[in-house]
């Protein structure tokens, strides 16, 4: 297993992100866009909750029979003229893919959007061996030009504004000094023209796979741009790279997952292109790749089976948990220092990279539960994050200050007769001190919070008091100073 992360400085990166005005402007689109569209799409399908139930049960069934599903998938790919390669870790996956590229004499490699190849740091490996990699997904292409990492698993360039993209195109597109880059449509047209030249000159196309269907040996990609289709159709070799957990038993199972995937990811009823690849070009086919390879990547996934984190293997990489996470929505994806950011990344990254270097990620959650509420395969993300926090505490990785504060809180929380009066007094005091504004711009011990936003004062009675039937009594406020 190898998985490179830069998560140790999550706190410093988060602080920088909160002070980054252009980033905050770009993240505003996320907060107001994708989550609203998801809500509308879900409301339009009465069976959505039942489909979530089915999708979660289906993923559990598939994981419980994973060995059989993988063997069936392999047999079907071979029966249709393709090859399957098994990569236990990132190094072996990189070596397999490089050998395939060299076998076919590749100089240029097209890439469709693929998080697993990001996980493998494949581009860097191929380029170190003299190949040129061209990302064809528009967002991936933009971040590649900027030598950045994707900041979102579905929308890689969500952290950028239109102006940032125009600046990158101006710096990299030769011979387009007078191009109109004032609108998103103009930028898309420019990228389309630039990418077309690459599509016609690459020897190998590498895509990910949203699903691998055991019944037919097909890999499935969903895109909204058609880039993945050209990537896997125009070059003479198609290599599909996917995690072992992406296998599904049948075509009907793929239908179920596709129904919840598109709605959860982008709020669409269906993605624009849902493309199934089944083997190489047949004798009668006028186009399509001459060779078809599937690389099945483990890289830590089998180690999650049978553990308390197995439910994370249900994940279909829709990004809904990112789109609804208040932490991700404030700091963006790069702060996490992992190709998998947000709640799903905060669970997955410690598993893939170890907890020592990723201990901050499970703490990057308010436990509001939005991630679990929108997850199309019902992964209990807050529970999984809590288990990582427990492990960090048990391994003494969480720092002396955090442990001391936890012990202090535990002392009071374990003594209700002391805890409740103190809590009521603190609530009254904070409410009174906050005055008519109802919030604090500065707070002793709360600098990390108030640096970027006001701290809301308690409104009144506690949750427990309400639960016990007490009437809500607003906290008295201090009179405004004149």
């Amino acid at each position: 297993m190898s998985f490179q992360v830069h998560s140790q400085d999550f706190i410093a990166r988060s602080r920088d992100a909160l002070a980054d005005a252009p980033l905050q402007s770009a993240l505003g689109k996320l907060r107001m866009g994708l989550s609203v569209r998801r809500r509308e799409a879900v409301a339009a399908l009465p069976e959505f909750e039942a489909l979530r139930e089915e999708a979660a049960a289906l993923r559990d069934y598939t994981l419980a029979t994973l060995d059989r599903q993988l063997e069936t998938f392999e047999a079907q790919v071979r029966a249709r003229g393709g090859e399957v390669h098994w990569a236990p870790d990132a190094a072996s996956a990189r070596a397999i893919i490089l050998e395939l590229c060299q076998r076919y004499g590749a100089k240029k490699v097209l890439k469709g959007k693929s998080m697993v190849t990001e996980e493998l740091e494949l581009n860097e490996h191929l380029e170190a061996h003299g190949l040129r990699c061209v990302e064809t997904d528009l967002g991936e292409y933009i971040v590649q030009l900027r030598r950045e990492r994707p900041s979102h698993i579905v929308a890689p360039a969500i952290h950028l504004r239109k102006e940032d993209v125009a600046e990158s195109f101006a710096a990299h597109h030769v011979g387009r000094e007078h191009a109109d880059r004032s609108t998103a449509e103009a930028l898309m047209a420019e990228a389309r023209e630039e990418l077309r030249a690459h599509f016609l000159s690459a020897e190998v196309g590498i895509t990910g796979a949203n699903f691998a269907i055991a019944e037919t040996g097909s890999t499935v990609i969903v895109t909204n741009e058609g880039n993945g289709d050209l990537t896997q159709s125009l070059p003479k070799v198609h290599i599909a790279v996917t995690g072992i957990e992406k296998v599904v038993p049948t075509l009907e199972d793929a239908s179920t997952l596709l129904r919840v995937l598109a709605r959860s990811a982008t709020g669409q009823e269906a993605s624009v292109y849902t493309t199934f690849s089944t083997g190489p070009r047949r004798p009668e086919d006028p186009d399509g790749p001459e060779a078809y390879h599937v690389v099945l990547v483990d890289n830590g996934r089998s180690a999650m089976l049978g553990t308390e984190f197995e439910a994370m293997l249900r994940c279909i990489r829709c990004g809904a948990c990112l789109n609804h996470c208040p932490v991700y929505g404030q700091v963006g994806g790069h702060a996490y220092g992992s190709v998998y950011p947000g709640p799903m990344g905060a669970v997955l990254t410690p598993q893939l990279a170890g907890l020592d270097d990723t201990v901050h990620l499970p703490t990057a959650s308010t436990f509001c539960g939005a991630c679990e509420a929108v997850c199309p395969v019902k992964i209990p993300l807050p529970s999984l994050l809590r288990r990582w926090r427990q492990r960090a505490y048990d391994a003494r990785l969480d720092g002396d200050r955090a442990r001391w504060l936890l012990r202090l809180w535990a002392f009071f929380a374990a003594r209700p007769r002391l805890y409740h009066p103190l809590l009521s007094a603190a609530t009254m005091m904070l409410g009174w001190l906050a005055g008519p504004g109802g919030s604090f711009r500065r707070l002793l011990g709360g600098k990390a919070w108030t640096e970027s936003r006001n701290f809301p004062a308690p409104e009144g009675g506690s949750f427990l008091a309400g639960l016990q039937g007490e009437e809500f009594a607003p906290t008295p406020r201090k009179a405004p100073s004149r």
Partner: protein
Amino acid sequence: MSDGGRAQILGAVRRALKARSAPSRPAHLVPQRARLQAPELRALFVAQAEGAGAKVQSVADDAALTEALRALAAAHGGVPVVAPASPLAKLPWGASAPALRPVASGDALAVSTAVAGLAETGSLALASGPENPVLSAFLPEHHAVVLPASALLGPSEDLWAFLREQAGVPRGWCSHVPCTGSPGPRAPGILK
């Protein structure tokens, strides 16, 4: 490397799953929305496809179809490009024949035939083969798809049944919600 990798991965999976009984498969649910009969099915398909940005045009017969395709290509400054093996090549095109050749980058309009239309999402299902080169859907500036009215289905499950029972699994097939895209075609249209 692959053989060793295969044994290593399957071994790890089996060790993790050892002594575990598989849960039963969940019942498969198909949304009611797609369980319609004509003409409601047709109305749903048109509404979904147009909602996604496609232009849907109904034609009565082959002559009207060729005329509509010719007019669509002319509006974009070209002639329709049709695969030589496509049944569309045998239509009564009259004096202004289409270009019977593989599609090339920059062509104004290529024409494909859908194996099915899925009313649930307004999607077109295109199966690859001599009659329908994959690239016809992606390389031209504009893409027109002919959908026979008899090929209108409800959900994708109906398509899977059709492929299993009648057509066989094609090498590649694409369920395509018509929409403008980059680098895909700019403005697909559907004729039926």
